[in-house]
């Protein structure tokens, strides 16, 4: 059964007609063509698919599309106002990514952390980031980049 769901995606109003149980991830990727949000586990345990819903991180692979009706969704593509967001810039400066596949999820999670806690210490970083896996093993650089971006993220 198809249902019409309207929400904001990266600041623009969108509306889709899909099965209401479809995870947000597949709507973003397949229906709307924003492939920056990645699939890796599909059960909410790796963080690759992390997006922001009304400013808070959510695992889009386990978020039914119906639940985001009239909410505001932001993906990696919508993070920067222009150029790169300070967290993305820190990622570039610290040369964080290896393959890069997990990094959109890492960045979306780090942005939320820095909004809530502008100067996290290592233990706070570990606690906030432990849900986002990186098979390439870029964790040390992620820690460093979060420190570099500390104080650069405004809550808006």
């Amino acid at each position, binding site marked *: 059964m198809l249902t019409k769901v309207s929400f904001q995606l990266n600041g623009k109003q969108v509306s889709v007609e899909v099965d209401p149980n479809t995870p947000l991830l597949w709507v973003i*990727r397949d229906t709307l063509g924003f492939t*920056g949000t*990645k699939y*890796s586990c599909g059960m909410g345990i790796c963080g690759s698919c992390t997006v922001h819903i009304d400013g808070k991180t959510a695992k889009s692979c386990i978020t039914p599309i119906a639940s985001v009706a009239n909410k505001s969704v932001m993906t*990696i593509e919508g993070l920067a106002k222009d150029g790169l967001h300070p967290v993305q810039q820190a*990622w570039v400066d610290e*040369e964080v*990514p290896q393959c890069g596949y997990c990094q959109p999820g890492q960045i979306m999670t780090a942005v939320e952390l820095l909004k809530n806690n502008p100067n996290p210490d290592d233990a706070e970083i570990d606690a906030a980031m432990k849900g986002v896996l990186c098979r*390439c*093993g870029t964790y040390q650089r992620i820690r460093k980049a979060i420190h570099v971006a500390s104080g650069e993220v405004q809550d808006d």
Partner: protein
Amino acid sequence: MTDLKMGQISRRDFIKLSSGSTVALLLGFSINRCESRTQIDEFSFEPNIYVRIGSDDTITIVMPRSEMGQKVYTALPMILAEELEADWNKVRVVQGDFNPVFGSQTTGGSASIRTHYNRLREAGATARMMLVLAAATKWGTPPDNCYASEGYVHLKGTRKKLSYGSLAALAENVEIPEQVILKDPKDFKIIGRSIKSLDTAYKVDGSLDFGYDLTLPGMLTAVIKRIPTFDGSVVDYDDSKTMEVPGVEAVVQVSSGVAVVAKDTWSAIQGRKALDVTFDGGPSAHLNSTDIREKMLNALKHSGEVLRNDGNINVAQKKANKSLELLFEVPYLDHAPQEPNNCTAHFYDGLCEIWAPTQNPGASFEAAKSITSFEDSKIILHTLRMGGAFGRRLAADYTVDAVELARHFSDPVKVVRTREEDIQHGTYRPATVHLLKAGIGENNEALYWKHTVSGPQVGWHGTITGGAPDLAYAIPNVNVDVVMSPFPVPTGPFRSVAHTQNGFVNECGIDALARLAGQDPYAYRRELLRDSPRHIGVLDLVAEKSGWGKDLEPGHARGIAVHYSFRSYCAMVAEISQEKSGKFRVHRMTAAIDCGQVINPDGVWAQVEGGIVMGLTAALHGKITLENGRVLQSNFHNYPILRMDEMPVIDIHIIKSEEPPTGVGEPPVPPTPPALINAIAALTGEYITRLPING
């Protein structure tokens, strides 16, 4: 792709496979976004298959290898750009499609830089010499009066200079020089510097497309309900419920199972849920890990193929003053790259076009050929970006899925795997067991070493024995042998292949021997490696940087290991403690690597960081178990990989060297688990010889 300009890799030696076959994929841009970028090239000078110099000064470097996070897209261009005297800011990279003209395009064995170092230096130098000649002709002066630097040819003693782009058309008509003059490494400006990857911005803004992200007009997406056992088959299936799922277009049986083809991924997954398939488990439907272990342990009792025999092991065993016997066991492992396997294929106009995120385009090409019986010129294979690979994408099973399926459709079909399928249908690092007997003489000197490897039957025994016979320690009596037993479990190379097992055995074994002799494990190794200065080089460096022998925080302990693989030397020190829960915490990993001439130090650091994380994951968590002929683990909850809160501080040191460059991706993996286990032994007195540590 029809843009021929884009595909024209070389004017002289390029063998055209078909009109559309030679397209290269632009870095950071999806295929659909390709053309707009190439139109910038109004003209390009193409002195060889690796480089094109546009009249707009852009330097396009064609990648003969594939990118999976190891940053060859930066290191290989650096080598060519160095000799070309290119302006690095003008360099861009395109992926070379599968083409025999490149020779082997298999990305594996930590070999991309080693095998391309001379080739790309020569390619760059040739282009540079031709540009200099072109400028000399234009100025009517001997080429000796000219020199190249940062994208320009300069006329000595004057301010005159010509950009490479402005010389492109002229250089096209210059004869290829017979003798290539390479730069003196002392004059290197690019090689040896930490240069940022050319594509990082695309990796952080979501615009970099991996295979999973490929979108083509009219494309269908499929998932397969796979035969759950290794040698089972499909008996029957009922797709009536599947066909009612909105979005589902078709259900097709393929050799790996039954595929559900839909308009999008979620519909395909829903369709698969509704699919009713009856499988025959096949001959190995009752296979389980306990039986496999039992068989491998039994096999240890038989003598195997002898790989090395120095001195007289039997006499030495009798003469020994003290001896030890250790039984090592490691499980099957899955690579679990962050991006699950996938592949896309499209049949049209008698062609089969394939988009494969692969380390091994050759294997995928051959697979497509044998399925379709098409001639070479009718198969077009594009190599796509990989979200990690670690050896998994050396196989071609994902391409087989896509080609078998897409031939039934006129639209392109992308076959994706869900995580469960990917973990349960891997090409696993073989499980092995190892019996090590070693002993010391009257004066505590190492006297003998007897190592038997027992594992699954593999095509070449090196896949389970690599690193075992080439034990570097000066022990007078060494015997290494291997016994193999047939199991139907698919196996394949995993980052550092058999060195994952044998590095563990060698380095825990020698550590235990040092303790038996009552000696410091670092000093003991050092003495036995006296004839191998490069081993000693990394060992000394890691000992110094880790503060070996210096005081530690109470409750902490250090362990050391050193291993040679993929022609590089890597030493590791782990610092650990034990938590109240009994779990071990890794605080710090110090690494030293000697990989010859370093191209990009930051790239080496990244690979060592990644190798350590992969080694720790294997040592602490990694295990694939078989039950009733199928893989028990299915996702990251039961196949965990290291998380941020388990991540130690990593400190890496590189030996300065002018030796030819050697491997980096794999060598840090083998010494990691033994360094950790030796640290645990230093704390507890016990060597954990059955992995993973956490069960």
